[in-house]
């Protein structure tokens, strides 16, 4: 295999793709080893670096895709601003190394707990530049907040895992850092109680910016609710939320637990992890199914986004044998297909080499649209082939 390619600018990126003799493995920092990693020559955006434009007064930042998330966060912090969608750092849960980049975050549409309030990475992408599978340098969107000029390929590129084109530049909407934040913990007894509690919190007018579950050291289940803003407003909202959520369990204010919810350090030792997106109340159906399938061995579960995001995991003992794990995987994607949603295999020692779809299989017409679209953007099929199944 020839040495990885590190184009320095868009012209080199375009040339690298035109000259490619076979499949390319597109990389940002290489920290998100999700999906089937394709064979082929590595092509990294790591050298496409730098913040191109930052206008705090316009809440806009434009950067090359190899720019590290850390550098962007630092630049924003100097102006008291932030990436509001708080992208997860997958290194912690996946045990990967490298530097998370803007390109990687956009290509994988990576968001964190605040997604429930403000939207996903894709909602903060204002414009993209990229090189498609034919080597064409293309742009879509721009750097302004509202833009309906032509089709919104920005959304299409976000979450396309490098399979439609290699992103070279992204314009982002950013937001001010809140003056302060507070978190209310409600000690609940059961999953249905947890989901009902989060739905109740998100149904209040108090601008909840995080609603997730946590386990305490003794294994007790808790719901955590976050509010952010100015001090006086936080005090008011915490008091109101406490009053309204007390019926779900004992309440207490706790210090900031959100890094653990976002990056899942406690999930690093697990063998197999799925990320599931469903209607929040459907999470209960998925949990019931997992309880049945894993009744002798157990499983880990954490809810975020009010229940709309489920993390499900098996440790080495729970992932007891290959056929059983394949059965869980298949049942999970099958159940989610019925309910509406998707289940993605995030990591698994036991399953990773198996011939199973890591991403949720698509309905027949959506699969047709997807394949035809790929053919338009990457007619030779060389960009991360097979990454998204």
């Amino acid at each position, binding site marked *: 295999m020839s040495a990885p390619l590190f184009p320095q600018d868009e012209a080199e990126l375009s040339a690298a793709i035109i000259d490619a003799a076979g499949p390319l493995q597109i990389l940002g920092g290489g920290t998100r080893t999700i999906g089937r990693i394709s064979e082929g020559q590595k092509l990294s955006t790591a050298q496409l670096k730098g913040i191109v434009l930052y*206008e*705090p*007064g*316009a*809440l806009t930042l434009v950067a090359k895709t190899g720019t590290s998330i850390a550098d962007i966060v630092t630049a924003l912090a100097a*102006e*008291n601003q932030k990436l509001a969608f708080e992208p997860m750092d997958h290194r912690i849960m996946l045990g990967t190394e490298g530097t998370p980049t803007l390109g990687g975050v956009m290509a994988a*549409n990576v968001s964190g707990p605040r997604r429930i309030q403000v939207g*996903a990475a894709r909602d903060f992408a204002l414009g993209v530049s990229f090189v498609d599978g034919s080597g*064409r*340098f*293309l*742009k*879509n969107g*721009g*750097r*302004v*907040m*509202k*833009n*309906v*000029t*032509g*089709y*919104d*390929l920005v*959304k*299409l590129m*976000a*979450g*396309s895992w490098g*399979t439609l084109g290699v992103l070279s530049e992204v314009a982002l909407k950013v937001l001010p*850092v*809140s003056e302060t934040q507070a978190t209310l913990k409600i000690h609940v007894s059961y999953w249905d109680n947890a989901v009902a509690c989060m*739905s109740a919190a998100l*149904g209040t*007018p108090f601008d909840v910016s995080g609603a997730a579950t946590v386990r305490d050291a003794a294994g007790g289940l808790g719901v955590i609710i976050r509010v952010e803003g*100015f001090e*006086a*407003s936080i005090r*008011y909202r915490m008091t109101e939320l406490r009053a309204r959520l007390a019926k779900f369990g004992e309440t207490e204010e706790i210090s900031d637990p959100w890094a653990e919810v976002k990056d899942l350090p406690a999930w690093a030792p697990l063998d197999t992890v799925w990320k599931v*997106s*469903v*209607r*929040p*109340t*459907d999470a209960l159906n998925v949990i019931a199914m997992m309880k049945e399938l894993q009744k002798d061995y157990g499983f880990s579960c954490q809810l975020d*986004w009010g229940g*709309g995001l489920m993390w499900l995991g098996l440790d080495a003992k729970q992932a007891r044998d290959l056929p059983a794990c394949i059965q869980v995987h298949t049942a999970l994607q099958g159940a989610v297909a019925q309910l*509406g*949603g*998707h289940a*993605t295999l995030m990591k698994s020692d036991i399953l990773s080499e198996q011939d199973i779809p890591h991403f*949720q299989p698509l*309905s027949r*017409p959506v699969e047709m*649209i*997807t394949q035809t*679209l790929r053919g*338009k953007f990457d007619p030779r099929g060389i960009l991360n082939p097979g990454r998204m199944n």
Partner: protein
Amino acid sequence: MEMPQPNSEILLKKAKVAAALRAVLPHDAVIDDSSETRAYECDALTAYRCPPMIAVLPSTTQQVSDVLKICHREGVPVVPRGSGTSLAGGALPTADCVILGVAKMSQVLETDYENRLIRVQSGRTNLSVSGAVEEEDFFYAPDPSSQLACAIAGNIAMNSGGAHCLKYGVTTNNLLGVTMVMMDGEIVEIGGGHLDSSGLDILGIICGSEGQLGVVTEAILRILPKPEGARPVMIAFDSNEVAGACVADIIKAGVLPVAIEFMDRPIIEICENFAKAGYPECEALLIVEVEGSETEIQDQLDRICTIAQKHNPVELRQSQSDAESAAIWLGRKSAFGAVGQVADYMCLDGTIPVSALPEVLRRIKELSKYYGLRVGNVFHAGDGNMHPLIMFDANKEGDLELCEAMGADVLRLCVEVGGCLTGEHGVGIEKRDLMEDQYSASDLEIQMAVKDVFDPGWLLNPAKVFPLSVSESRRAS
């Protein structure tokens, strides 16, 4: 503005097509009498009119599928229509087309407060979506000015915004899923009650595709709990530059108002004469609205006023009651109507980086002088979405053309300073011929390739969005 010549072979098939449509639709849902098709000859861009060959008003997704199958088989172009409130000519027919109106499809199919979503048929009006969830104190956030009349189908087609999208986002940020019928009649479900997509974000390209990829018949929309209250402050300045600087300072300070509206002197005067809202004598007026509990509102307004005071406003008026809030909003909300009273006008929709505001306003003033046409500016300042209203006299020969030429120059100016042709109205036919000012040939080619995927025969709303010369070979095929 040019539209393709109607295809005479299709016109000859009118009776056959109408009969086929009648076989799958209720009798009154097929309109082919030329005295009645005239009702569909234009949308809110009334300068351009053309009655369609036939209009149909299906009531179900299956009927939409049946209609599209027939049109697909017969090679008849289809122009989807929501409520016909497009300012960009998105629903303008051609003489050889079938207008597919979704007006009869207005049911609420599901409300789910626990999961904060509503499923509606796409002909339902924007405001009546909020109406359906009001009793539980929820609302649907995107609020285009036409929200009383405009349909969710059109909102999705144009990715509509509104005054309050600074905080809540536009349609694409509040759309969870759609049922869509493809041109060949195939029914597709995209997205659902869950968040984000596992595969490619197909929903993301459907939204804003101006009815060129499919006909959306049902939508799953995010609903939000209503804020406890909202109140505006009105701040008047003696220059546009200072008002612009004040907007940037408010945003930088970390207060995130739900709306920041900006009006310049010509608009202030016209609105004041029309609505008697009590606006002061000034060059620029900001209306900044915040939400929350009474204490939160006061706290935020105090912060905004402290920032504004540093810019020496001519006047600063904090609303203390619902009546005062209504008075502050009255002029702004009647802006379009007020301008309509004094002249014909064309409403532009370009978006610019907020930092370019003073320069753009100055250059619009120069263009106004050059063309000899009055311009008033009213816009969503928080997100740079301008609405220059160019006034002209439709009865004066050449004035419309002059106005269009000036409009094109203003939009080119928006692109030049780093902005775009349209922030929330869509391209339609209005900005179609300017697309090459914003996008390279390859950028347009890849967008057209996306349409090829969904509608290879280019039958759905084919003469919109892309300059005719650019899309010609595809439309001919």
